[in-house]
Protein backbone atom coordinates (compact mmCIF):
# COMPACT_ATOMS: atom_id res chain seq x y z
CA UNK A 1 0.00 0.00 0.00
CA UNK A 2 1.27 3.44 -0.87
CA UNK A 3 0.64 6.79 0.68
CA UNK A 4 -1.35 7.93 -2.37
CA UNK A 5 -4.53 6.43 -0.95
CA UNK A 6 -7.40 8.86 -0.58
CA UNK A 7 -7.74 10.07 2.97
CA UNK A 8 -11.03 8.30 3.64
CA UNK A 9 -9.45 4.89 3.22
CA UNK A 10 -7.30 3.91 6.15
CA UNK A 11 -4.84 1.28 5.00
CA UNK A 12 -4.39 -0.39 8.35
CA UNK A 13 -7.63 0.83 9.84
CA UNK A 14 -10.58 -1.23 8.79
CA UNK A 15 -8.57 -4.22 7.70
CA UNK A 16 -6.85 -4.36 11.05
CA UNK A 17 -10.04 -4.17 13.05
CA UNK A 18 -10.93 -7.51 11.61
CA UNK A 19 -14.36 -7.34 10.00
CA UNK A 20 -14.99 -10.09 7.46
CA UNK A 21 -17.19 -7.75 5.48
CA UNK A 22 -18.10 -4.14 5.68
CA UNK A 23 -20.42 -2.08 3.52
CA UNK A 24 -20.57 1.65 4.07
CA UNK A 25 -23.44 3.58 2.52
CA UNK A 26 -23.91 1.13 -0.34
CA UNK A 27 -26.23 2.28 -3.11
CA UNK A 28 -27.29 0.47 -6.23
CA UNK A 29 -30.08 1.38 -8.62
CA UNK A 30 -31.49 -0.42 -11.64
CA UNK A 31 -32.71 2.52 -13.67
CA UNK A 32 -35.22 4.25 -11.41
CA UNK A 33 -35.42 1.36 -8.95
CA UNK A 34 -33.26 1.98 -5.91
CA UNK A 35 -32.55 -1.64 -5.07
CA UNK A 36 -30.01 -0.82 -2.36
CA UNK A 37 -30.36 2.59 -0.81
CA UNK A 38 -27.70 3.48 1.73
CA UNK A 39 -26.92 0.14 3.29
CA UNK A 40 -24.46 -0.13 6.18
CA UNK A 41 -23.38 -3.58 7.17
CA UNK A 42 -20.60 -5.13 9.18
CA UNK A 43 -20.05 -8.85 9.45
CA UNK A 44 -17.53 -10.05 12.03
CA UNK A 45 -15.11 -12.85 11.35
CA UNK A 46 -16.40 -16.31 12.09
CA UNK A 47 -20.05 -15.45 12.58
CA UNK A 48 -23.06 -16.67 10.69
CA UNK A 49 -24.80 -13.52 9.60
CA UNK A 50 -28.34 -13.62 8.29
CA UNK A 51 -29.70 -11.03 5.87
CA UNK A 52 -33.47 -11.02 6.07
CA UNK A 53 -36.12 -9.01 4.33
CA UNK A 54 -39.21 -9.25 2.16
CA UNK A 55 -39.10 -9.94 -1.57
CA UNK A 56 -37.45 -7.07 -3.36
CA UNK A 57 -35.79 -5.72 -0.21
CA UNK A 58 -32.44 -5.71 -2.01
CA UNK A 59 -30.75 -8.73 -0.45
CA UNK A 60 -29.62 -10.29 -3.72
CA UNK A 61 -28.51 -6.93 -5.08
CA UNK A 62 -26.43 -6.36 -1.95
CA UNK A 63 -24.82 -9.75 -2.37
CA UNK A 64 -24.12 -9.11 -6.04
CA UNK A 65 -22.41 -5.86 -5.10
CA UNK A 66 -20.28 -7.66 -2.51
CA UNK A 67 -19.33 -10.41 -4.96
CA UNK A 68 -18.01 -7.83 -7.47
CA UNK A 69 -20.75 -8.67 -9.98
CA UNK A 70 -22.16 -5.16 -9.80
CA UNK A 71 -19.85 -2.16 -10.05
CA UNK A 72 -19.49 -0.25 -6.78
CA UNK A 73 -17.35 2.80 -6.09
CA UNK A 74 -14.11 2.35 -4.12
CA UNK A 75 -14.30 2.58 -0.35
CA UNK A 76 -17.81 1.16 -0.08
CA UNK A 77 -17.42 -2.60 0.14
CA UNK A 78 -14.51 -4.32 1.85
CA UNK A 79 -13.96 -8.03 2.31
CA UNK A 80 -11.30 -8.80 4.93
CA UNK A 81 -9.89 -5.37 4.30
CA UNK A 82 -9.77 -5.76 0.50
CA UNK A 83 -11.69 -3.16 -1.46
CA UNK A 84 -14.26 -4.75 -3.78
CA UNK A 85 -13.72 -2.06 -6.39
CA UNK A 86 -9.93 -2.00 -6.46
CA UNK A 87 -8.88 -5.49 -5.46
CA UNK A 88 -11.47 -7.59 -7.24
CA UNK A 89 -9.26 -10.65 -7.66
CA UNK A 90 -8.21 -10.64 -4.01
CA UNK A 91 -11.84 -10.33 -2.93
CA UNK A 92 -13.00 -13.13 -5.23
CA UNK A 93 -10.33 -15.48 -3.88
CA UNK A 94 -11.82 -15.07 -0.41
CA UNK A 95 -15.39 -15.71 -1.49
CA UNK A 96 -17.51 -18.79 -1.95
CA UNK A 97 -20.79 -17.92 -3.60
CA UNK A 98 -24.02 -19.83 -4.04
CA UNK A 99 -26.45 -17.67 -6.03
CA UNK A 100 -30.19 -17.56 -5.50
CA UNK A 101 -30.98 -19.50 -8.66
CA UNK A 102 -29.83 -23.08 -9.18
CA UNK A 103 -26.60 -22.86 -11.07
CA UNK A 104 -24.99 -26.24 -11.63
CA UNK A 105 -24.06 -27.10 -15.20
CA UNK A 106 -26.48 -29.83 -16.28
CA UNK A 107 -24.15 -30.90 -19.10
CA UNK A 108 -21.47 -32.02 -16.64
CA UNK A 109 -21.29 -34.60 -13.89
CA UNK A 110 -21.25 -33.54 -10.25
CA UNK A 111 -17.55 -34.26 -10.09
CA UNK A 112 -16.82 -32.19 -13.20
CA UNK A 113 -18.87 -29.30 -11.86
CA UNK A 114 -16.71 -29.15 -8.74
CA UNK A 115 -13.46 -29.82 -10.60
CA UNK A 116 -14.11 -26.76 -12.78
CA UNK A 117 -14.15 -24.57 -9.70
CA UNK A 118 -11.04 -26.23 -8.33
CA UNK A 119 -9.35 -25.35 -11.63
CA UNK A 120 -10.45 -21.74 -11.78
CA UNK A 121 -9.29 -21.23 -8.21
CA UNK A 122 -5.86 -22.55 -9.20
CA UNK A 123 -5.86 -25.73 -7.16
CA UNK A 124 -2.69 -27.51 -8.27
CA UNK A 125 -3.24 -30.64 -10.31
CA UNK A 126 -1.76 -33.06 -7.77
CA UNK A 127 -4.16 -31.83 -5.11
CA UNK A 128 -7.19 -31.41 -7.31
CA UNK A 129 -8.72 -34.88 -7.26
CA UNK A 130 -8.40 -35.21 -3.49
CA UNK A 131 -9.80 -31.75 -2.85
CA UNK A 132 -12.76 -32.29 -5.16
CA UNK A 133 -13.43 -35.64 -3.49
CA UNK A 134 -13.40 -34.00 -0.07
CA UNK A 135 -15.73 -31.24 -1.19
CA UNK A 136 -18.17 -33.79 -2.61
CA UNK A 137 -17.84 -35.85 0.54
CA UNK A 138 -18.51 -32.80 2.68
CA UNK A 139 -21.94 -32.42 1.08
CA UNK A 140 -22.65 -36.12 0.83
CA UNK A 141 -22.54 -36.39 -2.94
CA UNK A 142 -19.75 -38.93 -3.29
CA UNK A 143 -22.14 -41.60 -4.54
CA UNK A 144 -23.75 -39.37 -7.13
CA UNK A 145 -20.53 -37.68 -8.26
CA UNK A 146 -20.28 -39.48 -11.59
CA UNK A 147 -23.88 -38.79 -12.56
CA UNK A 148 -24.88 -35.89 -14.75
CA UNK A 149 -25.95 -32.92 -12.62
CA UNK A 150 -28.99 -32.74 -14.90
CA UNK A 151 -30.35 -35.80 -13.10
CA UNK A 152 -29.97 -34.31 -9.61
CA UNK A 153 -32.90 -33.30 -7.45
CA UNK A 154 -33.12 -29.69 -6.36
CA UNK A 155 -31.64 -30.40 -2.96
CA UNK A 156 -28.76 -32.29 -4.50
CA UNK A 157 -28.04 -29.39 -6.86
CA UNK A 158 -27.92 -27.05 -3.87
CA UNK A 159 -25.43 -29.33 -2.14
CA UNK A 160 -23.39 -29.59 -5.33
CA UNK A 161 -23.25 -25.81 -5.47
CA UNK A 162 -22.09 -25.80 -1.89
CA UNK A 163 -19.30 -28.20 -2.82
CA UNK A 164 -18.35 -25.89 -5.69
CA UNK A 165 -18.15 -23.00 -3.27
CA UNK A 166 -16.24 -24.95 -0.60
CA UNK A 167 -13.58 -26.45 -2.86
CA UNK A 168 -11.56 -23.23 -2.78
CA UNK A 169 -11.68 -22.99 1.04
CA UNK A 170 -13.36 -19.57 1.09
CA UNK A 171 -13.08 -17.36 4.15
CA UNK A 172 -16.45 -15.78 3.48
CA UNK A 173 -19.21 -18.06 2.26
CA UNK A 174 -22.15 -16.20 0.73
CA UNK A 175 -25.36 -18.14 0.38
CA UNK A 176 -28.41 -16.57 -1.28
CA UNK A 177 -31.41 -18.56 -0.08
CA UNK A 178 -29.48 -21.81 0.12
CA UNK A 179 -32.26 -23.98 1.48
CA UNK A 180 -35.19 -22.80 -0.62
CA UNK A 181 -37.33 -25.76 -1.62
CA UNK A 182 -35.43 -28.26 0.51
CA UNK A 183 -37.12 -30.64 2.90
CA UNK A 184 -36.38 -30.09 6.61
CA UNK A 185 -33.98 -33.01 6.90
CA UNK A 186 -31.97 -32.04 3.86
CA UNK A 187 -31.92 -28.48 5.17
CA UNK A 188 -30.58 -29.56 8.54
CA UNK A 189 -27.90 -31.69 6.95
CA UNK A 190 -26.71 -28.82 4.79
CA UNK A 191 -26.44 -26.64 7.87
CA UNK A 192 -24.61 -29.38 9.75
CA UNK A 193 -22.07 -29.60 6.95
CA UNK A 194 -21.59 -25.86 7.03
CA UNK A 195 -21.07 -26.05 10.80
CA UNK A 196 -18.51 -28.83 10.36
CA UNK A 197 -16.49 -26.80 7.94
CA UNK A 198 -16.83 -23.70 10.04
CA UNK A 199 -15.55 -25.54 13.08
CA UNK A 200 -12.37 -26.35 11.20
CA UNK A 201 -11.79 -23.10 9.35
CA UNK A 202 -13.50 -20.32 11.25
CA UNK A 203 -15.18 -19.48 7.96
CA UNK A 204 -17.62 -16.57 8.01
CA UNK A 205 -21.06 -17.11 6.52
CA UNK A 206 -23.41 -14.51 5.06
CA UNK A 207 -26.79 -16.02 4.28
CA UNK A 208 -30.18 -14.79 3.13
CA UNK A 209 -33.31 -16.73 3.92
CA UNK A 210 -37.05 -16.36 4.14
CA UNK A 211 -37.23 -19.01 6.83
CA UNK A 212 -37.43 -17.27 10.18
CA UNK A 213 -37.01 -20.58 11.94
CA UNK A 214 -33.71 -21.12 10.15
CA UNK A 215 -32.58 -17.58 10.88
CA UNK A 216 -33.45 -17.99 14.53
CA UNK A 217 -31.63 -21.31 14.90
CA UNK A 218 -28.63 -20.91 12.67
CA UNK A 219 -27.62 -17.26 12.62
CA UNK A 220 -25.52 -15.50 15.24
CA UNK A 221 -26.69 -12.09 14.11
CA UNK A 222 -29.33 -10.80 11.75
CA UNK A 223 -29.95 -7.72 9.71
CA UNK A 224 -33.48 -7.01 8.61
CA UNK A 225 -33.58 -5.21 5.28
CA UNK A 226 -36.47 -3.29 3.84
CA UNK A 227 -36.38 -1.11 0.74
CA UNK A 228 -32.66 -1.24 0.32
CA UNK A 229 -31.73 -0.43 3.90
CA UNK A 230 -31.03 -2.19 7.18
CA UNK A 231 -34.01 -1.54 9.46
CA UNK A 232 -33.00 -3.69 12.42
CA UNK A 233 -29.80 -5.36 13.51
CA UNK A 234 -28.82 -7.74 16.26
CA UNK A 235 -28.94 -11.28 17.58
CA UNK A 236 -32.32 -13.01 17.25
CA UNK A 237 -32.85 -12.45 20.98
CA UNK A 238 -31.96 -8.78 20.75
CA UNK A 239 -34.41 -8.29 17.91
CA UNK A 240 -37.19 -9.94 19.86
CA UNK A 241 -36.35 -7.87 22.94
CA UNK A 242 -36.48 -4.76 20.77
CA UNK A 243 -39.96 -5.69 19.64
CA UNK A 244 -41.10 -6.27 23.23
CA UNK A 245 -39.78 -2.85 24.19
CA UNK A 246 -41.52 -1.31 21.21
CA UNK A 247 -44.79 -2.99 22.11
CA UNK A 248 -44.54 -1.74 25.66
CA UNK A 249 -43.93 1.80 24.47
CA UNK A 250 -46.88 1.81 22.13
CA UNK A 251 -49.09 0.25 24.77
CA UNK A 252 -49.69 -2.80 22.65
CA UNK A 253 -50.20 -5.53 25.23
CA UNK A 254 -49.64 -8.72 23.31
CA UNK A 255 -49.07 -11.27 26.06
CA UNK A 256 -47.24 -13.87 23.92
CA UNK A 257 -43.44 -13.58 23.62
CA UNK A 258 -42.69 -12.47 20.07
CA UNK A 259 -41.23 -14.84 17.50
CA UNK A 260 -38.75 -13.76 14.87
CA UNK A 261 -41.62 -13.77 12.43
CA UNK A 262 -43.33 -11.11 14.50
CA UNK A 263 -40.13 -9.08 14.36
CA UNK A 264 -40.07 -9.49 10.58
CA UNK A 265 -43.67 -8.38 10.25
CA UNK A 266 -43.04 -5.44 12.51
CA UNK A 267 -40.11 -4.07 10.53
CA UNK A 268 -41.08 -5.08 7.02
CA UNK A 269 -44.80 -5.61 7.18
CA UNK A 270 -47.53 -3.41 5.82
CA UNK A 271 -47.74 -1.50 9.11
CA UNK A 272 -44.56 0.37 8.29
CA UNK A 273 -44.81 0.72 4.55
CA UNK A 274 -46.86 3.23 2.67
CA UNK A 275 -48.17 1.02 -0.12
CA UNK A 276 -47.54 3.34 -3.09
CA UNK A 277 -43.93 2.89 -4.20
CA UNK A 278 -43.76 -0.69 -2.99
CA UNK A 279 -46.13 -1.83 -5.70
CA UNK A 280 -44.04 -0.22 -8.40
CA UNK A 281 -40.92 -2.08 -7.42
CA UNK A 282 -41.17 -5.01 -9.73
CA UNK A 283 -42.82 -7.21 -7.16
CA UNK A 284 -44.29 -9.34 -9.90
CA UNK A 285 -40.93 -10.20 -11.33
CA UNK A 286 -39.64 -10.95 -7.85
CA UNK A 287 -42.43 -13.36 -7.18
CA UNK A 288 -41.98 -14.93 -10.58
CA UNK A 289 -38.28 -15.33 -10.03
CA UNK A 290 -38.80 -16.87 -6.62
CA UNK A 291 -41.42 -19.24 -7.97
CA UNK A 292 -39.14 -20.12 -10.83
CA UNK A 293 -36.40 -21.05 -8.40
CA UNK A 294 -38.82 -22.86 -6.17
CA UNK A 295 -40.20 -24.95 -9.01
CA UNK A 296 -36.74 -25.85 -10.20
CA UNK A 297 -35.68 -26.79 -6.72
CA UNK A 298 -38.77 -28.62 -5.64
Amino acid at each position, binding site marked *: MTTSLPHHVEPAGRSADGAALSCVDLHYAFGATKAVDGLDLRVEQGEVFGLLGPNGAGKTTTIRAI*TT*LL*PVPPGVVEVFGHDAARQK*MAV*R*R*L*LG*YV*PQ*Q*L*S*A*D*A*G*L*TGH*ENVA*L*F*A*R*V*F*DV*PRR*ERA*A*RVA*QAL*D*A*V*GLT*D*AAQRSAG*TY*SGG*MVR*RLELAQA*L*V*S*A*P*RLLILDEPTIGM*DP*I*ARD*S*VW*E*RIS*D*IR*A*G*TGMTVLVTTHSMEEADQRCDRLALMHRGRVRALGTPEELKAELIAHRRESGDADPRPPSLEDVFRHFAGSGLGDPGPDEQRGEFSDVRRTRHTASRVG
Partner: protein
Amino acid sequence: MSAVPATPRPASADAVPDGPVAPDQRFALLLAPPRARGGLRVVPARVVAMCAVELQKLRHDRTELYTRAVQPALWLLIFGETFTRMHVIPTGNVPYIDYLAPGIIAQSAMFIAIFYGIMIIWERDSGVLTKLLVTPTPRAALVTGKAFASGVKAVIQAVVVIVIAAALGVALTWNPLRLLGALVVVLLGSAFFACLSMAIAGIVLTRDRLMGIGQAITMPLFFGSNALYPVDVMPGWLRAFSAVNPLSYQVDALRGLLIGTHAHLLADFAVLTVAALLGIAAAASLLGRLAR
Protein backbone atom coordinates in the same frame (compact mmCIF):
# COMPACT_ATOMS: atom_id res chain seq x y z
CA MET B 1 -33.47 -40.04 -9.42
CA SER B 2 -32.71 -43.02 -11.55
CA ALA B 3 -29.57 -44.47 -10.03
CA VAL B 4 -30.52 -44.46 -6.37
CA PRO B 5 -27.79 -45.94 -4.20
CA ALA B 6 -28.48 -49.39 -2.82
CA THR B 7 -28.60 -48.35 0.83
CA PRO B 8 -32.01 -46.94 1.64
CA ARG B 9 -31.91 -43.48 3.09
CA PRO B 10 -34.30 -42.93 5.96
CA ALA B 11 -36.85 -40.16 5.91
CA SER B 12 -35.35 -37.81 3.32
CA ALA B 13 -34.02 -38.82 -0.06
CA ASP B 14 -31.75 -35.81 0.03
CA ALA B 15 -30.39 -36.27 3.52
CA VAL B 16 -26.65 -36.24 3.78
CA PRO B 17 -25.42 -39.54 5.17
CA ASP B 18 -23.40 -39.01 8.30
CA GLY B 19 -19.93 -40.44 8.04
CA PRO B 20 -18.18 -42.09 10.95
CA VAL B 21 -14.93 -40.19 10.39
CA ALA B 22 -14.16 -37.02 12.32
CA PRO B 23 -14.81 -33.94 10.17
CA ASP B 24 -11.39 -32.36 10.66
CA GLN B 25 -9.75 -35.28 8.86
CA ARG B 26 -12.30 -35.72 6.14
CA PHE B 27 -12.15 -32.08 5.16
CA ALA B 28 -8.48 -31.43 5.79
CA LEU B 29 -7.88 -30.07 2.30
CA LEU B 30 -10.86 -27.74 2.48
CA LEU B 31 -9.30 -25.80 5.33
CA ALA B 32 -6.59 -23.99 3.40
CA PRO B 33 -7.14 -21.97 0.24
CA PRO B 34 -5.05 -22.83 -2.84
CA ARG B 35 -2.09 -20.60 -3.68
CA ALA B 36 -2.95 -17.84 -6.11
CA ARG B 37 -1.56 -18.11 -9.62
CA GLY B 38 0.08 -14.88 -10.52
CA GLY B 39 -0.17 -12.49 -13.42
CA LEU B 40 -0.37 -13.68 -16.99
CA ARG B 41 -0.25 -17.37 -16.12
CA VAL B 42 -3.92 -17.06 -15.28
CA VAL B 43 -4.85 -16.87 -18.97
CA PRO B 44 -3.46 -20.24 -20.15
CA ALA B 45 -4.78 -21.86 -16.97
CA ARG B 46 -8.30 -20.59 -17.65
CA VAL B 47 -8.06 -21.57 -21.32
CA VAL B 48 -7.23 -25.11 -20.23
CA ALA B 49 -10.11 -25.12 -17.72
CA MET B 50 -12.68 -23.94 -20.27
CA CYS B 51 -11.44 -26.32 -22.96
CA ALA B 52 -11.58 -29.22 -20.49
CA VAL B 53 -15.22 -28.40 -19.75
CA GLU B 54 -16.01 -28.26 -23.47
CA LEU B 55 -14.41 -31.65 -24.05
CA GLN B 56 -16.22 -33.17 -21.07
CA LYS B 57 -19.53 -31.92 -22.43
CA LEU B 58 -18.78 -33.31 -25.88
CA ARG B 59 -17.90 -36.63 -24.32
CA HIS B 60 -21.25 -36.80 -22.55
CA ASP B 61 -23.27 -35.79 -25.57
CA ARG B 62 -21.89 -36.49 -29.02
CA THR B 63 -25.09 -35.91 -30.97
CA GLU B 64 -24.04 -32.37 -31.81
CA LEU B 65 -20.89 -33.72 -33.39
CA TYR B 66 -22.84 -35.98 -35.72
CA THR B 67 -25.62 -33.58 -36.64
CA ARG B 68 -23.14 -30.84 -37.40
CA ALA B 69 -21.34 -33.08 -39.89
CA VAL B 70 -24.43 -33.34 -42.10
CA GLN B 71 -24.43 -29.85 -43.56
CA PRO B 72 -20.79 -29.68 -44.68
CA ALA B 73 -21.10 -33.18 -46.12
CA LEU B 74 -24.08 -32.04 -48.20
CA TRP B 75 -22.27 -28.91 -49.36
CA LEU B 76 -19.32 -30.94 -50.56
CA LEU B 77 -21.38 -33.79 -51.99
CA ILE B 78 -24.07 -31.84 -53.82
CA PHE B 79 -22.73 -28.34 -54.41
CA GLY B 80 -19.13 -29.51 -54.80
CA GLU B 81 -19.77 -32.42 -57.12
CA THR B 82 -22.25 -30.51 -59.29
CA PHE B 83 -20.14 -27.41 -59.73
CA THR B 84 -17.06 -29.51 -60.40
CA ARG B 85 -18.89 -30.88 -63.43
CA MET B 86 -20.25 -27.54 -64.58
CA HIS B 87 -16.85 -25.83 -64.72
CA VAL B 88 -18.46 -22.40 -64.24
CA ILE B 89 -16.24 -21.17 -61.45
CA PRO B 90 -12.68 -20.44 -62.56
CA THR B 91 -10.43 -22.27 -60.13
CA GLY B 92 -7.44 -22.79 -62.39
CA ASN B 93 -6.23 -26.35 -62.59
CA VAL B 94 -7.76 -27.26 -59.20
CA PRO B 95 -11.03 -29.26 -59.36
CA TYR B 96 -13.86 -27.21 -57.88
CA ILE B 97 -14.57 -29.64 -55.06
CA ASP B 98 -10.94 -29.38 -53.94
CA TYR B 99 -11.21 -25.62 -54.10
CA LEU B 100 -14.45 -25.73 -52.12
CA ALA B 101 -13.33 -28.07 -49.30
CA PRO B 102 -11.27 -25.50 -47.32
CA GLY B 103 -14.12 -23.01 -47.72
CA ILE B 104 -16.57 -25.49 -46.22
CA ILE B 105 -14.19 -26.28 -43.36
CA ALA B 106 -14.01 -22.57 -42.53
CA GLN B 107 -17.75 -22.11 -42.97
CA SER B 108 -18.76 -24.97 -40.71
CA ALA B 109 -16.31 -23.84 -38.04
CA MET B 110 -17.70 -20.30 -38.28
CA PHE B 111 -21.29 -21.54 -37.91
CA ILE B 112 -20.35 -23.16 -34.62
CA ALA B 113 -18.52 -20.12 -33.32
CA ILE B 114 -21.04 -17.50 -34.36
CA PHE B 115 -23.71 -19.11 -32.18
CA TYR B 116 -21.39 -19.54 -29.22
CA GLY B 117 -22.81 -16.42 -27.61
CA ILE B 118 -26.10 -18.26 -27.20
CA MET B 119 -24.30 -20.60 -24.88
CA ILE B 120 -22.97 -17.63 -22.91
CA ILE B 121 -26.48 -16.24 -22.54
CA TRP B 122 -27.71 -19.67 -21.53
CA GLU B 123 -24.94 -19.85 -18.94
CA ARG B 124 -25.90 -16.41 -17.73
CA ASP B 125 -29.56 -17.36 -17.39
CA SER B 126 -28.66 -20.55 -15.57
CA GLY B 127 -26.28 -18.82 -13.16
CA VAL B 128 -23.20 -20.71 -14.33
CA LEU B 129 -21.58 -17.61 -15.82
CA THR B 130 -22.44 -15.55 -12.75
CA LYS B 131 -20.51 -17.94 -10.57
CA LEU B 132 -17.54 -18.00 -12.93
CA LEU B 133 -17.47 -14.21 -12.75
CA VAL B 134 -16.99 -14.49 -8.97
CA THR B 135 -13.83 -16.58 -9.37
CA PRO B 136 -10.33 -15.06 -9.65
CA THR B 137 -10.67 -14.95 -13.43
CA PRO B 138 -10.26 -11.62 -15.19
CA ARG B 139 -12.96 -11.08 -17.80
CA ALA B 140 -10.40 -11.17 -20.61
CA ALA B 141 -9.14 -14.55 -19.38
CA LEU B 142 -12.69 -15.88 -19.18
CA VAL B 143 -13.46 -14.69 -22.71
CA THR B 144 -10.20 -16.11 -24.03
CA GLY B 145 -10.99 -19.42 -22.35
CA LYS B 146 -14.46 -19.48 -23.89
CA ALA B 147 -13.11 -18.48 -27.29
CA PHE B 148 -10.66 -21.36 -27.32
CA ALA B 149 -13.31 -23.71 -25.97
CA SER B 150 -15.42 -22.89 -29.00
CA GLY B 151 -12.24 -23.46 -31.03
CA VAL B 152 -12.03 -26.98 -29.61
CA LYS B 153 -15.45 -27.74 -31.07
CA ALA B 154 -14.52 -26.10 -34.35
CA VAL B 155 -11.27 -28.05 -34.62
CA ILE B 156 -13.10 -31.34 -34.07
CA GLN B 157 -15.59 -30.24 -36.72
CA ALA B 158 -12.73 -29.37 -39.07
CA VAL B 159 -11.21 -32.81 -38.63
CA VAL B 160 -14.57 -34.38 -39.46
CA VAL B 161 -14.93 -32.28 -42.62
CA ILE B 162 -11.35 -33.06 -43.65
CA VAL B 163 -12.14 -36.76 -43.37
CA ILE B 164 -15.36 -36.34 -45.38
CA ALA B 165 -13.50 -34.36 -48.03
CA ALA B 166 -10.78 -36.98 -48.25
CA ALA B 167 -13.46 -39.66 -48.64
CA LEU B 168 -14.94 -37.69 -51.54
CA GLY B 169 -11.57 -37.77 -53.25
CA VAL B 170 -10.36 -34.25 -52.52
CA ALA B 171 -6.58 -34.13 -52.94
CA LEU B 172 -5.66 -32.83 -49.48
CA THR B 173 -2.20 -32.64 -48.09
CA TRP B 174 -1.17 -35.25 -45.55
CA ASN B 175 1.82 -33.26 -44.37
CA PRO B 176 1.35 -33.20 -40.57
CA LEU B 177 2.82 -29.72 -40.21
CA ARG B 178 0.43 -28.30 -42.78
CA LEU B 179 -2.50 -30.07 -41.16
CA LEU B 180 -1.46 -28.68 -37.79
CA GLY B 181 -1.20 -25.23 -39.32
CA ALA B 182 -4.72 -25.65 -40.72
CA LEU B 183 -6.07 -26.51 -37.28
CA VAL B 184 -4.39 -23.43 -35.80
CA VAL B 185 -6.06 -21.34 -38.51
CA VAL B 186 -9.43 -22.88 -37.62
CA LEU B 187 -8.77 -22.18 -33.93
CA LEU B 188 -7.92 -18.53 -34.55
CA GLY B 189 -10.89 -17.99 -36.84
CA SER B 190 -13.27 -19.59 -34.36
CA ALA B 191 -11.83 -17.54 -31.53
CA PHE B 192 -12.65 -14.39 -33.49
CA PHE B 193 -16.18 -15.41 -34.45
CA ALA B 194 -16.93 -16.72 -30.94
CA CYS B 195 -15.79 -13.38 -29.49
CA LEU B 196 -17.89 -11.53 -32.05
CA SER B 197 -20.83 -13.63 -30.92
CA MET B 198 -20.10 -13.05 -27.22
CA ALA B 199 -19.74 -9.32 -27.82
CA ILE B 200 -23.13 -9.24 -29.55
CA ALA B 201 -24.52 -11.31 -26.67
CA GLY B 202 -23.24 -8.62 -24.30
CA ILE B 203 -25.16 -6.03 -26.30
CA VAL B 204 -28.48 -7.74 -27.05
CA LEU B 205 -28.60 -9.85 -23.83
CA THR B 206 -31.28 -12.31 -24.99
CA ARG B 207 -31.06 -15.61 -26.84
CA ASP B 208 -33.75 -14.82 -29.36
CA ARG B 209 -32.19 -11.58 -30.48
CA LEU B 210 -28.76 -13.15 -30.72
CA MET B 211 -30.20 -16.04 -32.72
CA GLY B 212 -31.72 -13.56 -35.18
CA ILE B 213 -28.55 -11.54 -35.50
CA GLY B 214 -26.46 -14.68 -35.86
CA GLN B 215 -28.65 -15.88 -38.69
CA ALA B 216 -28.60 -12.46 -40.31
CA ILE B 217 -24.82 -12.20 -40.37
CA THR B 218 -23.67 -15.75 -41.14
CA MET B 219 -24.86 -15.73 -44.74
CA PRO B 220 -23.32 -12.34 -45.66
CA LEU B 221 -20.07 -13.44 -44.02
CA PHE B 222 -20.14 -16.71 -45.93
CA PHE B 223 -21.16 -15.39 -49.36
CA GLY B 224 -19.08 -12.27 -48.88
CA SER B 225 -15.92 -14.35 -48.67
CA ASN B 226 -13.77 -16.41 -50.97
CA ALA B 227 -15.20 -19.64 -49.55
CA LEU B 228 -17.28 -20.51 -52.65
CA TYR B 229 -15.61 -18.55 -55.45
CA PRO B 230 -12.41 -16.61 -56.05
CA VAL B 231 -12.30 -12.92 -55.22
CA ASP B 232 -11.60 -12.15 -58.91
CA VAL B 233 -15.16 -12.98 -59.99
CA MET B 234 -16.74 -10.71 -57.37
CA PRO B 235 -18.11 -7.25 -58.13
CA GLY B 236 -16.01 -4.44 -56.65
CA TRP B 237 -18.19 -3.77 -53.60
CA LEU B 238 -18.20 -7.41 -52.61
CA ARG B 239 -14.48 -7.61 -53.10
CA ALA B 240 -14.11 -4.70 -50.67
CA PHE B 241 -16.23 -6.52 -48.12
CA SER B 242 -14.28 -9.71 -48.61
CA ALA B 243 -11.06 -7.80 -47.92
CA VAL B 244 -12.24 -6.94 -44.40
CA ASN B 245 -13.92 -10.28 -43.78
CA PRO B 246 -11.74 -12.47 -41.53
CA LEU B 247 -13.39 -15.55 -43.03
CA SER B 248 -11.64 -14.79 -46.34
CA TYR B 249 -8.24 -14.81 -44.66
CA GLN B 250 -9.10 -18.04 -42.92
CA VAL B 251 -10.15 -19.68 -46.21
CA ASP B 252 -7.08 -18.33 -48.00
CA ALA B 253 -4.77 -19.83 -45.39
CA LEU B 254 -6.64 -23.14 -45.32
CA ARG B 255 -6.51 -23.42 -49.09
CA GLY B 256 -2.81 -22.69 -49.11
CA LEU B 257 -2.10 -25.20 -46.39
CA LEU B 258 -4.44 -28.01 -47.42
CA ILE B 259 -4.67 -27.78 -51.23
CA GLY B 260 -1.41 -26.02 -51.93
CA THR B 261 -2.86 -23.07 -53.85
CA HIS B 262 -1.07 -19.77 -53.77
CA ALA B 263 -1.79 -18.13 -50.38
CA HIS B 264 -0.63 -15.19 -48.29
CA LEU B 265 0.01 -17.22 -45.15
CA LEU B 266 1.87 -14.57 -43.18
CA ALA B 267 -0.76 -11.92 -43.80
CA ASP B 268 -3.53 -14.42 -43.10
CA PHE B 269 -2.08 -15.44 -39.75
CA ALA B 270 -1.45 -11.81 -38.83
CA VAL B 271 -5.00 -10.73 -39.71
CA LEU B 272 -6.56 -13.68 -37.87
CA THR B 273 -4.42 -13.11 -34.76
CA VAL B 274 -5.20 -9.40 -34.62
CA ALA B 275 -8.89 -10.09 -35.24
CA ALA B 276 -8.96 -12.64 -32.42
CA LEU B 277 -7.25 -10.22 -30.02
CA LEU B 278 -9.64 -7.40 -30.94
CA GLY B 279 -12.54 -9.80 -30.50
CA ILE B 280 -11.33 -10.80 -27.05
CA ALA B 281 -10.97 -7.16 -26.03
CA ALA B 282 -14.46 -6.29 -27.30
CA ALA B 283 -16.15 -9.31 -25.74
CA ALA B 284 -14.33 -8.85 -22.42
CA SER B 285 -15.47 -5.25 -22.14
CA LEU B 286 -19.08 -6.17 -22.93
CA LEU B 287 -19.22 -9.30 -20.76
CA GLY B 288 -19.92 -7.28 -17.60
CA ARG B 289 -23.29 -6.29 -19.04
CA LEU B 290 -24.31 -9.94 -18.78
CA ALA B 291 -23.47 -9.94 -15.07
CA ARG B 292 -25.82 -7.08 -14.18
